[in-house]
């Protein structure tokens, strides 16, 4: 195969996963760059930002961020992180890379559709990024694009960029549906002999349910984005009350997509963490079946809770009670998962390798984010807290503390399988320690700021007397945020250094049980060289007394039976 076929227009699921990895890490960096600019402005309003002089006059004058640019920053930070960093990192990278390897098959069900899914995602990202380079600046109605601000250029001050946002989301939705139908078909039809539903690793279960959510949720957002685009371009008024449209309709459509999306952003991380925790604790995952039913329950409940984003929107207050109860119900499967993780760790012979540290952090931080979620789910508590930094703290505890720590765990865990080299363990641990520390220093004080009434997306807190006393906290957060961002350089250095210079990885460096560890690192095209492994057991058989290495690979036959592979 030529270089182009092998690495660029590849249909190999592993290459596509790696392509997604590089692209979405780039967008993660973009999102981070936007975030530290936000923190500069909130911490040091009116002060010229270092290197801010490089920005054009329409964004910052003399390095001082303009309000018009600030709202673009918060809009695009949310958009990039949700749609182009976290979602593809969890699903685009690991659903592609792991599903065929963990199920014991040579590739996805539709390799060419898979390739298109990647290129459409990249196209969507480029369209979104183009927003910063059009004359009137990037989209600026918040990542939730609430109408009528998003629908009317005369209100938002942006014409083309708002349209680019809608077009990008429609293209991304197409990419997501193509990817998801691939994952679903592969999981149903391409399991190796012996790989029954209840021998699948929890990461595959989580990715499978996530794919179902993606197939059902993204089209609703696409439809809504197209209607919004019509409002902006041909002059319909779906979401503009001036001509009879309904601003609330946008919120309903957006959050009907948006809440399943929240679980798209966390379920895969829960799956990865389950794999890593069992591996690090050297114990079978506690309550394997309960974990699966909890994933299914979260996936189902995610469809009937969207109104909790709209308690204060003017929606009929009668509905708030309903949405509050369904939302609080999600705490049940979430708690099942948390206690099962703790049960897995209980009396385990824990190996504190860097993926394990990230997984442990995931559990701790997800619990904090989950508990602040219970606050916000309760309508009476949400009334004072909505639209404050308490919400910002909550979303970052689940999306950064949860999803992103899960992603860092996954990257360090599967890096040897992806590239055939180990990451540097010392650098990985240092990166983990600094990220964990500064993450908490940034986001925990935001709970206090929010309770103190600091509004989110606020340009200049010093303008408000009730926030002036808290400005010290804001400065503290901003300094911590800069340090958090700087700490990521350890990850970048480690990633690229290990890519070329890392220690060669064996097939199974973590002594794990699932099928991908029975293939060479990195696996060749076709994964097992034309042989399909046969599966004899579940994926978490650690500390098995009769096993010779204290764990069983799924493809190892019971004692006394020869290993077989079918061609």
């Amino acid at each position: 195969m030529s270089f182009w076929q092998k690495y660029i227009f590849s249909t190999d699921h592993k290459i596509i996963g790696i392509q997604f990895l590089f692209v979405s890490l780039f967008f993660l960096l973009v999102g981070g760059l936007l975030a530290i600019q936000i923190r500069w402005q909130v911490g040091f309003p009116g002060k010229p930002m270092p290197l801010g002089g490089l920005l054009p006059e329409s964004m910052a004058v003399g390095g001082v961020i303009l309000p018009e640019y600030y709202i673009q920053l918060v809009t695009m930070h949310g958009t990039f992180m949700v749609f182009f960093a976290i979602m593809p990192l969890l699903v685009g990278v690991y659903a592609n890379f792991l599903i065929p390897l963990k199920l014991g098959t040579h590739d996805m069900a539709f390799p060419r559709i898979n390739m298109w899914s990647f290129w459409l995602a990249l196209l969507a990202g480029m369209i979104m990024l183009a927003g910063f380079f059009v004359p009137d600046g990037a989209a600026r109605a918040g990542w939730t694009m609430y109408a009528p601000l998003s629908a009317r250029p005369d209100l938002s001050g942006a014409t083309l960029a708002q349209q680019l946002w809608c077009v990008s989301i429609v293209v991304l939705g197409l990419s997501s549906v193509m990817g998801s139908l691939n994952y679903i078909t592969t999981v149903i039809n391409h399991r190796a002999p012996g790989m029954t539903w209840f021998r699948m690793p929890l990461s595959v279960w989580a990715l499978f349910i996530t794919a179902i959510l993606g197939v059902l949720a993204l089209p609703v957002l696409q439809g809504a984005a197209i209607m919004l685009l019509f409002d902006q371009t041909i002059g319909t008024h779906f979401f503009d009350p001036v001509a009879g449209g309904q601003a609330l309709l946008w919120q309903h459509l957006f959050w009907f997509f948006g809440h399943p999306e929240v679980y798209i952003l966390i379920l895969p991380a829960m799956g990865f963490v389950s794999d890593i925790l069992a591996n690090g604790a050297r114990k079978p995952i506690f309550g394997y079946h309960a974990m699966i039913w909890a994933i299914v329950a979260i996936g189902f409940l995610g469809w009937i809770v969207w109104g909790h984003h709209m308690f204060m929107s003017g929606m009929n207050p009668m509905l708030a009670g309903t949405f509050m109860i369904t939302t609080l119900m999600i705490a049940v499967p979430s708690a099942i998962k948390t206690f099962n993780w703790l049960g897995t760790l209980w009396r385990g012979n824990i190996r504190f390798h860097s993926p394990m540290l990230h997984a442990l952090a995931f559990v701790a931080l997800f619990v904090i984010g989950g508990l602040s979620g219970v606050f916000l789910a309760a309508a009476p508590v949400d009334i004072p807290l909505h639209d404050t930094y308490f919400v910002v703290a909550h979303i970052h505890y689940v999306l950064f503390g949860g999803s992103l720590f899960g992603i860092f765990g996954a990257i360090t865990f599967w890096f040897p399988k992806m590239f055939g080299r180990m990451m540097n363990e010392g650098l990985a641990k240092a990166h983990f320690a600094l990220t964990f520390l500064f993450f908490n220093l940034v986001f925990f004080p935001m709970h206090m700021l929010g309770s103190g009434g600091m509004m989110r997306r606020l340009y200049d807190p010093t303008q408000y007397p009730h926030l002036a006393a808290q400005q010290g906290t804001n400065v503290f957060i901003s300094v911590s945020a800069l340090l958090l961002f700087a700490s990521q350089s350890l990850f970048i250095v480690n990633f690229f250094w290990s890519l070329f210079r890392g220690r060669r990885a064996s097939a199974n460096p973590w002594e794990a049980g699932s099928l991908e560890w029975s293939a060479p690192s990195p696996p060749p095209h076709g994964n097992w060289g034309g042989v399909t492994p046969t599966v004899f057991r579940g994926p978490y058989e650690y500390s098995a007394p009769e096993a010779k290495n204290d764990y069983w690979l799924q493809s190892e036959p019971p004692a006394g039976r020869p290993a077989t592979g079918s061609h």
Partner: protein
Amino acid sequence: MSYAAAATMERGPSSFGVYNLKLGMWVFLLSEVMFFTGLIGAYIILRFARPEQFAEPGVVLNVPLTALNTFILICSSVTMVKAYAEIERGNQKGLRTYLLATVVLGLVFLGIQAIEYTVLSHEGFVPMADQYAAHGRQGGEAVLGGPLYGATFYTMTGFHGTHVSIGVFCMIFTTIKAFRGGYSATSYGGVEIMGLYWHFVDLVWIILFTIVYLI
């Protein structure tokens, strides 16, 4: 289709006895269901919120013409089923005839929809809020309904028309392949998934015709 026939088309074991292409199409159609659910849901909400913007059935829209068009689309679903039945029995000639008939019926549907759009926009029934001036088929002075009527009508029927166009486009390739003898009694997955898509588009139209034109 027998399981053995399916297995010859795609590799790998199958949990539900549904081969890859068909399963993939079903999942894709699920996403399409959600897409139209979003649009139809928005329509229902807007119509209940602003009943005065929606004219009485048949006053602005030409119901008899569209009823004829609905009949044509249903007929095209019948010819699609016949095409599938013919190739299942290995009848190449029947497959080609019925596929061709389906393409023609699809094109007729699109043609009638294009005529309908032209006439309606001449009568002032347009999606643009500031240009909306629907006087209805009787041509009176009063403006009937409001801009949401035009906007929802063109969005829903327009997206359906787009789906029919894509269907006809793909069906043309299926037909060309059929004329080249690309399908047989043991290998006709392409015809089957084309049929699934076509019936879905037909079903969506029956729902749209009911809620947009009749009630």
